[in-house]
């Protein structure tokens, strides 16, 4: 039995390594100033999917909604072990909040067809809402398992997982198909040299057309032939527009987003630093080490 696993990922601005001005004067994120990275917990979702592939046999399909440049995270998924990728891109998707995003992704999943599992990272570092995964489950009518750490068993149309809860963990079982959101903790595998050398040539149709335009080719037939050729070598990244996934225009992008940002405040925390230290040898050792490093001790 081979499973079909959809993983939805997001390209995000690197909010942890801020260079330059991170926010624009109007309070929105200045994406141009921040390097674009693979959302960290989405890497954990991809890793979990790849582990399912290693353990039980699965086809891993990675999808993302974003501008054309988001194809980069799809290639990064191919470098790590994904089998197939979908870029959901259309100007009409722009400005989406979590409701419009989860709707668009649900259209994408439906268009893909039959699947056994849908995986998402718990949340993206640019919005930190953790809403898209659960909303997507609702729209697809799937049971959802959030904060998943590890898959314990998969078989007989069921999955058993371990998930983190406050102060401990919980083991849950759910029927397939199911949606899971994954938290950090598994160790995402590195990109593989052989896969990089092969899949660095993976392109979406538009990227290929742009390569042709750069080289001054405008022959549509030749382009179609090349697209075929890439598809034949498993190097074509699917590129779907709003129309192609049958998304209702009033439910996507800005039009489908009821969220309105009223004001944004930059909160600067004041007051003394607080720090909790685990009452273990390792915790105390760490504290002592820090104090030595500070030259508070020694």
């Amino acid at each position, binding site marked *: 039995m081979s499973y079909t696993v959809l993983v939805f990922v997001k390209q995000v601005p690197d909010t942890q*390594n801020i260079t330059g001005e991170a926010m624009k004067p109007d309070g929105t994120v200045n994406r141009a100033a921040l390097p674009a990275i693979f959302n960290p917990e989405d890497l954990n979702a991809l890793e979990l999917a790849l582990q399912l592939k290693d353990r039980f046999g699965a086809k891993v399909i990675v999808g993302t909604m974003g501008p054309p440049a988001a194809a980069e995270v799809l290639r990064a998924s191919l470098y790590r072990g994904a089998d197939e990728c979908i870029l959901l891109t259309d100007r009409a998707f722009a400005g989406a909040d979590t409701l419009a995003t989860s709707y668009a992704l649900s259209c994408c999943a439906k268009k893909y067809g039959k699947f056994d599992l849908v995986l998402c990272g718990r949340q993206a570092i640019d919005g930190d809402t953790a809403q898209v995964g659960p909303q997507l489950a609702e729209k697809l009518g799937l049971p959802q398992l959030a904060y998943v750490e590890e898959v314990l068993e998969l078989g007989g149309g069921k999955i058993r997982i371990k998930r983190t809860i406050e102060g401990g963990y919980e083991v849950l079982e759910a029927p397939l198909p199911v949606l899971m959101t994954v938290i950090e903790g598994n*160790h995402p*595998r*590195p*990109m*593989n*040299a*052989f*896969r*990089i*050398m*092969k899949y*660095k040539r993976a392109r979406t149709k538009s990227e290929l057309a742009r390569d042709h335009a750069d080289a001054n080719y405008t022959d549509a037939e030749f382009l179609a032939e090349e697209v075929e050729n890439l598809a034949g070598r498993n190097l074509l990244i699917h590129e779907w527009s709003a129309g192609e996934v049958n998304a209702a225009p009033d439910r996507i992008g800005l039009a489908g987003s009821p969220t309105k940002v009223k004001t944004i405040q930059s909160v600067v925390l004041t007051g003394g630093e607080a720090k909790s230290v685990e009452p273990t040898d390792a915790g105390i050792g760490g504290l002592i*080490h820090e104090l*030595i*490093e500070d030259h508070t001790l*020694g």
Partner: protein
Amino acid sequence: MANFFTENKDLVFTLEHLDLEETTRLRENNYEYAGEFDGAPRNYADAHDNYQRVLTVIGEICAENIAPRATEVDENGPHFENGVVTYYPLTVQNLKDLNDAGVSGVMLAHKYGGLNFPVSIYTMMTEMVSRADASLQNLFGLQDIAETISDFGSEEQKDYYLPRFARGEVDGAMDLTEPDSGSDLQSVRLRAWQDESGQWYLNGMKRFITNGCAAVHLVLARSEEGTVDGRGLSMFICEAGPQLVVRRIENKLGIHGVATAELQYNDVPAQLCGQRRRGLTKYVMSLMNGARVAISGQALGIAEAAFHEARKYAEERKQFKKSIDKFPPVYEMLTRMKIKILATRTLLYETTRAVDLRGVYEKLAENTENPSPEIRQQAKYWSRVAAVLTPMSKALSTEVANQVAYDAIQIHGGTGFMRDFPAERFYRDARITNIYEGTTQLQVVAAIGGVMQRHNDERIRELMKLPYEGTLERLRHKVVALYEKQLKAVEYVAERKDAEYQNLVARCLVEMETMVLVGILMLRDALKCTEREVLVERYIIDSEPQFEERYLRVLSGDLTMIDKHREIIDY
């Protein structure tokens, strides 16, 4: 994300300007493999892009995964119980990360599942892995064993072993040293004997074997009964099994993460690798030369790690109301450390370039029917150059690693003496590099012939003809002056025809040669990037007095050391 490749300006510069076009074209069979293997490059630009991408991935793994685990690996190390070596779990994870990244067979041919990258690129990985955890390099570097099988093994041996190495399923060990045969490998005694069916067996002891618990071993053994020298030795492949016993693992000063084992061979079944009697003279020499390049990379990685810690500390540490890197003795130390690292890297990749070219031309000469005189000439030329540069590079890198690690502790002051900071680990790890795979003293022995025969002259003269101007032209004059003195010193020693005197001053001559060659190479680099002018200026100004001191010693003709050392030692 931290990255030991993209954040290392000098390494990025090196890759960008390292001319591997000829090597890559020949390795890739004029890019004909592109049709046959997924990912094999279509042209040099494509290959270079692959190198850059893969180095970026390894740079990230080294900085983000491996380096943070190094202290714990150093504190724990492998465990030995009931004849079984178990690596520390984080070491196992490190190896898994590297294997997942697809770099278990970096230099192996495409058909065996390797990346078919040149030695130069592999050495860059070596450097980064060592910077993260020097002990891990002793495991990562064992790819040289697969490389040796690839060069000298039979087709069956290659088909059987190489894909397993490339997939990371087996690890290797090279079993050379014995209790009474260290530097003098000609005296190896481990016995290889054949039964009536022709099956070989190995019997005896080996000592100080890095990763002696490996699955696959290359063993230097005496196959010719009654012989006592190197011509009675052959190379064998054997696998771990009940007859191959790990007796103990060593308790070492540094490189704690890797097991160094004593092995007992109780008639271990083995296969001959290559031809009889050529074990030491050809195969082990080749294996050791590869390993010497790798140790140069390891030493450079340790130096880089030590420098970064020292620099960081000197910026953060405040005394007398300012950070200590504002004080002349400290910034002088940091500057010297940095220049030594740059000089080392310059010579190392000049070396790997020659090793790469030797490799492709030797293969071409071997695999072509009636190779053209030009091919044979190239093979011979690069073989000579690689033979002199490899020991020069190892001597420089490993001595520099020790000096830099020493200064890094000095900059930390008392803190550097404590286990809480990694400076002391670098100091311990560096200490073996100028000992194993041949001590610095033996590297001098290996290099002096090429220095006396002037095997670097062609390259030095070619680089001197580049169009330098202004400061660079003034610096070139300085290097030319050193070069002329070097020629004079070599002539002086040659004319004396006194082997003892030559051995005594050999190290001076090799170090002087290094200063001339590195000086002109760094000048060339400054032509490509004006930011590097200050680097070569510093290198040459600092080298002049050091060169002069050695020059005076060589030309002194002083024999008092030879005549009177015994009286002094015995006093």
